């Protein structure tokens, strides 16, 4: 590796680096992080990202609640999480420093915009003394750079106010980071062209800021080392970087293509699910329709109405909206129509912490309705998997004529990773027929294998019939208050969902088929659990990881898997919802690990808990 310009600095090869960009919510930190992520992904690193931003669009400038962060981990080997502790913190103001410095690994590097460390900003962040000068950061390597001043100098002569110029300082910082990690600026330069092509002065300002940051790295002598992280050895294929919400939207679009039916997405704006509506609204040329409803109930009502008409009715929301949709979901159970409900979970109860992640809607999805009303539930484990499980949700809904809940969460939705783009012909055929034959038609006659009822859509001659929320007479589908019939219908509805277990893959176990400890997870805890288990296995422990993607019904081998280990540990970002299910269904003394802080587990937290469980011989499960 040679540095062609500026001073000569040694290059150090690293396997993995984690950077956190932090600043005021108006400082463009999400954009900065996204640009660095794309660049690392295109370069061929494995990456994993974690945006962390406040719910307020613009909290008071310079305040701690207004701090917005974006963490990216990039690596030359396969990684599963956005990294525990950042190696580098880029802090654009005192509040960003104060809110993030405690997460930094000891000996980590801090790059700050020293221009922002003014007495008022220090006061807003709650600093009595300037941390850049009071020696409180002595355990870190601090690079204080007057980013605003240097950036303004680089933009000198452009027809902009100094305030407008300062809005580009994030790209100056990005330029420094690109230099420090030996990255090409091409991806970001192309993005600037695409984004600001119509506004030449803004485009020029961002270009200059980026270049000036890079040049600053080259010419300044404050950095004594630069770093390189080689490309990872990913499976062959074409990749793109993708967030969970993007993958969810693409999966839905793809499912509609695979089923050869129109998708109708009805939704009400809610964090962190709104991007799905934005994405799908842009794909009208696929014939799909999107509908921003007046409320959450109308959204699911419209989705169910669309499914009644033979389309793929889809709605998406987060926890509070899920609560409002409960009654209509019950109706969908009763009328047995396909429907998919996306719940991008966030921290609750009530409004909770809208931009923060949690896994606390599992029991709501399973049981949050009046009456016994079984609904299949699927949950992707990674951002890229959101694509596969959008398709899986529809496969189940269409084949088994049932509403399905798809549980994503804020971490999956906004986090990103490289995604190997699938070949369309490798995806399942989701087509199912409408009922058209009038001979022997009964609205609640069931397929002998799946127990699904026929999908007889309005417009089909001879199949005129009435459905609704009142109990149905078995087969005929007319209203019935007969006690035995109600009991039979309850059993049929339960059996119909239970039989889906025959139609899903077994629970896969990573590690020994029996042993000391099984760590069982679901949803976005996948990465942290898998990394922790890999490390435990490296030390020779008989520890396995199983991750449920189907939460109702469970895969048929679930009982065998959870009973094959001395101990079962279930980490969840909730108070123990899956644990309650596993304990009650399989009579296994599963232990919980529950941290509900609105953020993902770190690998070391899982590792420490697992080591504690392994070191405690008191509670064997068998």
């Amino acid at each position: 590796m040679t540095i062609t310009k500026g001073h000569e600095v040694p290059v150090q090869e690293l396997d993995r680096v984690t950077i956190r960009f932090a600043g005021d919510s108006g400082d463009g930190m999400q954009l900065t992080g996204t640009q660095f992520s794309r660049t690392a992904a295109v370069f061929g690193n494995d990456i994993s990202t974690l945006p962390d931003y406040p719910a307020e669009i613009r909290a008071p400038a310079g305040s701690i609640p207004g701090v917005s962060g974006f963490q990216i981990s990039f690596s030359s080997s396969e990684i599963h999480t956005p990294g525990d502790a950042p190696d580098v913190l880029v802090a654009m103001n005192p509040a960003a420093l104060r809110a993030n410095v405690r997460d930094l690994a000891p000996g980590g590097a801090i790059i700050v915009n020293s221009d922002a460390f003014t007495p008022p900003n220090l006061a807003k962040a709650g600093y009595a003394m300037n941390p850049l000068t009071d020696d409180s950061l002595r355990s870190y390597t601090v690079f204080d750079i007057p980013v605003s001043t240097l950036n303004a100098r680089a933009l000198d002569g452009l027809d902009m106010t100094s305030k407008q110029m300062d809005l580009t300082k994030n790209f100056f910082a990005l330029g420094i980071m690109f230099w420090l990690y030996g990255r090409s600026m091409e991806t970001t330069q192309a993005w600037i062209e695409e984004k600001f092509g119509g506004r030449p002065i803004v485009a020029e300002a961002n270009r200059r800021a980026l270049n000036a940051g890079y040049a600053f790295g080259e010419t300044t002598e404050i950095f004594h080392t630069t770093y390189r992280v080689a490309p990872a050895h990913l499976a062959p294929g074409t990749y793109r970087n993708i967030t969970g919400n993007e993958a969810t939207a693409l999966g839905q679009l793809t499912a509609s293509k695979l089923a050869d039916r129109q998708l109708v997405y009805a939704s009400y704006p809610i964090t962190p699910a709104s991007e799905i509506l934005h994405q799908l609204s842009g794909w009208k040329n696929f014939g799909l329709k999107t509908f921003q409803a007046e409320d959450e109930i109308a959204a699911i009502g419209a989705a169910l109405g669309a499914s009644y008409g033979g389309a793929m009715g889809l709605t998406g929301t987060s926890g509070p909206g899920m609560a409002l949709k409960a009654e209509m979901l019950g109706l969908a159970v009763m009328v047995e129509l396909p429907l998919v409900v996306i719940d991008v979970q966030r921290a609750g109860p009530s409004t909770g912490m809208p931009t923060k992640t949690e896994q606390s809607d599992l029991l709501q999805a399973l049981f949050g309705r009046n009456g016994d009303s079984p609904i299949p539930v699927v949950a992707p484990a990674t951002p890229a998997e959101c694509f596969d499980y959008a398709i899986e949700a529809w496969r189940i809904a269409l084949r088994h004529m049932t509403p399905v809940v798809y549980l994503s969460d804020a971490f999956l939705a906004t986090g990103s990773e490289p995604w190997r783009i699938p070949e369309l012909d490798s995806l399942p055929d989701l087509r199912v027929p409408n009922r058209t034959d009038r001979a022997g038609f009964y609205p609640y006659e069931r397929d002998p294998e799946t127990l699904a009822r026929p999908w007889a859509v309005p417009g089909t001659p001879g199949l005129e019939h009435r459905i609704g929320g009142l109990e149905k007479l078995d087969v005929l589908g007319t209203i019935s208050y007969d006690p035995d019939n109600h009991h039979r219908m309850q059993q049929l509805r339960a059996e119909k969902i239970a039989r889906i277990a025959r139609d899903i893959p077994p629970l896969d176990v990573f590690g020994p088929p029996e042993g000391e400890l099984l760590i069982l997870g679901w949803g976005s805890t996948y990465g942290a659990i898998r990394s922790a288990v890999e490390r435990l296995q490296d030390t020779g422990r008989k520890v396995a990881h199983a991750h449920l993607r189907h939460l109702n019904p469970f895969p048929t081998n679930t009982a065998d898997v959870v009973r094959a280990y001395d101990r079962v540990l279930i980490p969840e970002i909730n108070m123990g919802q899956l644990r309650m299910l596993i304990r009650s269904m399989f009579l296994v003394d599963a232990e919980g690990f529950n941290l509900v802080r609105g953020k993902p587990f770190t690998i070391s937290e899982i590792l420490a808990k697992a080591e504690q469980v392994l070191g405690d011989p008191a509670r064997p499960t068998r």
Partner: protein
Amino acid sequence: MTDQRTPSALDAAPIKLSRKDFASDQEVRWCPGCGDYSILAQTQKVMPDFGVPKENIVFISGIGCSGRLPYYMNTYGFHSIHGRAPTIATGLKEARPELMVWVVTGDGDALSIGGNHILHSMRRNVDIRVVMFNNRIYGLTKGQASPTSEFGQKTKSTPSGSADYPIHPLVVALAAEASFVARAVDTQTEHLQGVLERAGFHRGSAFVEVLQNCNIFNDGAHRAFTERDVREDRQLVLEHGKPMLFGKNHDLGLRLNGVRPEIVRVGEDGITEADILVHDETSEDPTIHNMLARIYWPEFPVPIGVIRNVPRPTHDELVDAQVRDAIARQGPGDLAKVLRSGETWTVQ
């Protein structure tokens, strides 16, 4: 926007059906003497007039006595949940704009629990015909005050009299920009048929209030102006282009005094027919329509008939046109291309 219209059930060549074709095999189970029987009968009677095959007609209801109507129609039917029928109808029309969709609802269903959905389906001009049975009481739950119950009315839930002011359903419909607003009475069967037929032929959101008698829990709620012998003096039968005259001798009329309506007698004080307001249901300006939606017995005669009927592109057409436009502009969606959008890289 392309100007190509979305095909409607009404565009197809009419087919011949009879009232019998629209009666299902289900036993009708409303209380004997209920006004709902008449509304069902008139609905079945007018259905053949549209010439639409019954498989292309869908009745969607909410909860309440009115909610049962779809079971008695031999069309497609969906008895949904309380207040939410307009949402299901909206989604159905997004997916299947060509269907003729009716929403059957009541005063509690439409204006209380489902108020929000009525507002928004009307303002979007979804191509649905909403028939709201207004008996000014909760009947199916056995007699609690509804949003149209009178102020001070004693019901099971308001033994000291209702402290809530009633809502004017048609004022709400107009405020929500319904493109067709009408009122009819359950017992005035021919008039009711006429109104339902006009609603059926309308394209866009039609809101029809049917004054319906609940003979068990609110008997006689509309009697003061619907009894045969007082009707002519106490109802104003609206006809487009005709002066707003009423009364046994057809000599009472409505005119404006400043911004207020007043009742005058033609032939007295030099008043001629030329002084009387002429009904224009197609007026874009809703001022007079609002006045007609608001005036009520005993201060004024109760207007019945079509109050407002204006053409507006329907939600279904607009949404459909956006899809057609997107295809025309961008070409049909290429999934493989969308999957590969953004920066991609290849690992060998």
